[in-house]
């Protein structure tokens, strides 16, 4: 579904992503692992069109490289960025509205908001509150719901469990498997390698901008590199 080859991201002189290639099959959950600064966010941001990159990105057979973020989301790829980044002074309702406003209108838009409120009942309770007043977990739910408002076929999730309490982390991973079971394809970036590998079909390990290892979830769990670097046993 998504094919990335030779992707490079440069910030001035710093090359953050040094030619990585990966593929995400339809209906799968693929995880990107790696230490801080390995280039995981840069990779997702480049796919979503937020940062300029070289290399080739194709989605459902169409070339995406070089398109701006505004157009890529229209093709069916939504990114939930690292750090949630909800609009703090806007209400939950307004955040959701903006998530869908470029993709639907009128009753369809209302229907999508209603569907997200069904999925995340807590957002219904907080509907008229400012997003900045929500807890970290609630903000993460809002950020994901807002991404889903575009009705994407591929969801890019950048560290959705970062800084959340264990109970909420469970919820996030339940949500990820649930979304996949409803037909969504997911490319996930996670620090929580153990949990991420449990839910994912395939994983890539990044080190200073390069893929150093890849394999299925169980393969990676057994690999020495992943054991040493990212798993806590």
């Amino acid at each position, binding site marked *: 579904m998504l094919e990335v080859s030779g992707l490079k991201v440069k910030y001035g002189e710093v090359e953050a992503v040094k030619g990585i290639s990966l593929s995400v099959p339809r209906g799968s959950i693929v995880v990107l692992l790696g230490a801080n600064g390995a280039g995981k966010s840069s990779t997702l941001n480049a796919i979503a069109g937020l940062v300029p990159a070289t290399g080739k990105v194709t989605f459902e057979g169409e070339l995406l490289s070089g398109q701006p973020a505004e157009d890529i989301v229209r093709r069916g790829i939504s990114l939930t960025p690292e750090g949630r980044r909800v*609009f703090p002074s806007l209400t939950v309702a307004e955040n959701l509205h903006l*998530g869908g406003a470029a993709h639907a209108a009128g009753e369809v838009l209302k229907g999508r908001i209603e569907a997200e409120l069904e999925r995340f009942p807590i957002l219904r309770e907080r509907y008229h509150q400012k997003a900045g007043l929500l807890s970290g977990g609630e903000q993460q739910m809002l950020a994901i719901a807002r991404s889903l408002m575009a009705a994407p076929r591929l969801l890019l999730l950048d560290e959705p469990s970062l800084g959340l309490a264990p109970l909420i982390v469970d919820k996030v991973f339940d949500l990820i498997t649930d979304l996949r079971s409803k037909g969504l394809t997911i490319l996930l970036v996670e620090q929580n390698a153990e949990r991420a590998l449990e839910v994912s079909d395939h994983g890539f390990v990044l080190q200073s901008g390069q893929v150093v290892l890849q394999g299925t979830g169980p393969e990676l769990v057994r690999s020495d590199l992943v054991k040493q670097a990212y798993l806590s046993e």
Partner: protein
Amino acid sequence: MDIFLQQIINAISLGGIYALLALGLAVVFSIVSLINFAHGELMTVAGYGMFFAIAVSLPFPFALAAAVIFACAAALLTERFAFRPMRKADMTGLLLTSFAVSAILRVLFQNGISARSKAVPLPAELSGAIDLGFFHIGIVPLLSIVTTALSLWALTLFLRRTTLGKAMRAAAEDFQVLRLMGIKANRVIAVAFAVSGVLAGVAAVLWIAQRGSVDPLMGFVPVLKAFVAAVIGGLGSLSGAVAGGFALGILEVLFQAFLPEAALPFRDAFVLGFVILILIWRPDGLIPAPVSRRS
């Protein structure tokens, strides 16, 4: 009593003009980090729009509409042809661009129209006052206050109720994420400029209603003051701009009214001195803008 009320009316109507201008500056600044020094020229454009509409004997309401439409069009044109090509520039680059736009427009007015001021005749009905029994209120200040209130109300509705308005508020907080939602950056920025143009047009009408003429430098002083107002309020904060505008208007009228005769030429120095005190007390302004993240 009469004089005191009169001063309050003056302060509110003057403050309202500053508030509208400061809002125009803030709307643009909050989204593109540009302090648009060409904002004053938008006022001037509005003034000439009004002047020409009256010169070709269009009815007065059309002249008012022409002022607002001219200012809005000028704001959109400067965005499209001056600021958009400089989008990647830093704050200094944008600031210099706005100086250039302002200078070019001023030269155009001076050479293309006239360096001297042109009278903008107002309908006679506007020159009177309404007798409230205990108190006379001038029609111009009264309309000025009503217009400011209506404009603020309309802008609030726009920002709260419409998708573009919400997008503008979101853009001020996190433009990149807004683009991730598929909302076009260019569209939101253009709308911000259009809004600032409309506000400049309305302010120009109110300004001209008080002085009855337009000249190439007309916008300079009020926009300088609006900039001060925006800083008092908290640069980039919309409610701050309104608060700062009224605060400045009130300060000016107070000092004008209560400074001794000999000190009156130094009124602006007193006002600015007071502004400095406000900023020592609240360095980020009366109502600081939320910290936004930009790429």
